[in-house]
């Protein structure tokens, strides 16, 4: 009688354990965009490429004259861009810069300039062969910022 009780208990424990294992598998969270992009090193490489594209782009490079001339401002812009993409894609970063509206106020940025910037970002993503899904997701995060940037 005692043995059968122990067996029952063991079977019950096994059943519960297996249920927990299956539950754990079911609740496996999908990878964040940050993880799919390749983490901070991949984002940093894309941002560097993007900045390289921007300074070589005559449509907008004059806008970055003061930033390029000051190494501290360059670093600040680069880190803010990385933080923004990292935080927006679900990474462990916190954007510490000004809001898009604050930082572009009075600059009177045109739609053509904004489109050129987006083009430079897309070119940087293409350079690293970022898949279309991840590219679309990232652009969808950054796209809504357009109203805070253009014509301010």
């Amino acid at each position, binding site marked *: 009688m005692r043995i059968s009780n122990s067996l029952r208990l063991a079977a019950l424990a096994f059943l519960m354990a297996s249920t927990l294992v299956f539950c754990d598998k079911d609740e496996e969270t999908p990878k964040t965009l940050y993880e799919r992009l390749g983490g901070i090193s991949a984002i940093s490489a894309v941002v560097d490429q993007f900045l390289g594209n921007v300074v070589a782009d*005559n449509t907008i490079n*004059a806008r970055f004259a003061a930033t*390029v*001339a000051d190494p501290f401002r*360059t670093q600040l812009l680069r880190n803010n861009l990385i933080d923004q993409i990292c935080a927006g894609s679900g990474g462990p970063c*916190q954007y510490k810069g000004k809001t898009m509206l604050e930082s572009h106020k009075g600059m009177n940025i045109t739609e053509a300039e904004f489109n050129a910037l987006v083009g430079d970002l897309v070119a940087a993503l293409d350079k690293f062969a970022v898949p279309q899904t991840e590219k679309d997701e990232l652009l969808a995060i950054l796209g809504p910022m357009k109203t805070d940037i253009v014509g301010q």
Partner: protein
Amino acid sequence: MKRTRIFLFFLAISTGFGWFSLRKPHSPTDDLPMITVAAYEFQKIETARGRSVAEEARQWPGVTAATFNEGSQLLGVTFTGEISEKNLLEKLGAAAAAPVARKVFTEPMGAKCPVPTAVFAKIPIWLGWLSGLFSMLLLLTFLSKFFRKKEKSLADRPHESAISNHLFI
């Protein structure tokens, strides 16, 4: 006296909290090396050559990105302190077999702040350190007064002092 000590204690705690809240959270970007972004123009270069120079430059240590823009004929490069700009210019010139110079952009006209941006950005860090230092000093003052009082009370009761000395020895 007791009131002063309580005030000092609470002041130290609140300053400590202030310092903690002023601290910026650590971000993975804090560990990234400083970079320089620059555009270079060649005296005369074909598009294919420009592209191959960019590809070559990307392999050099210290260069984090390089791109050649067909429209502007400019080479955009981002690089760390691992390579000096002089060295980079020499290497670019050799790779392109053409004279190369850094493109200087004309800054947009307008009022310019005379204080460098770096100073503005460092103010919260300095404040944080000052606040931390102040709270440490306050805590030390509080603790020194506390221990001084304990020493005095032990001196008033020599038998307890002897016991504690015996215990510590």
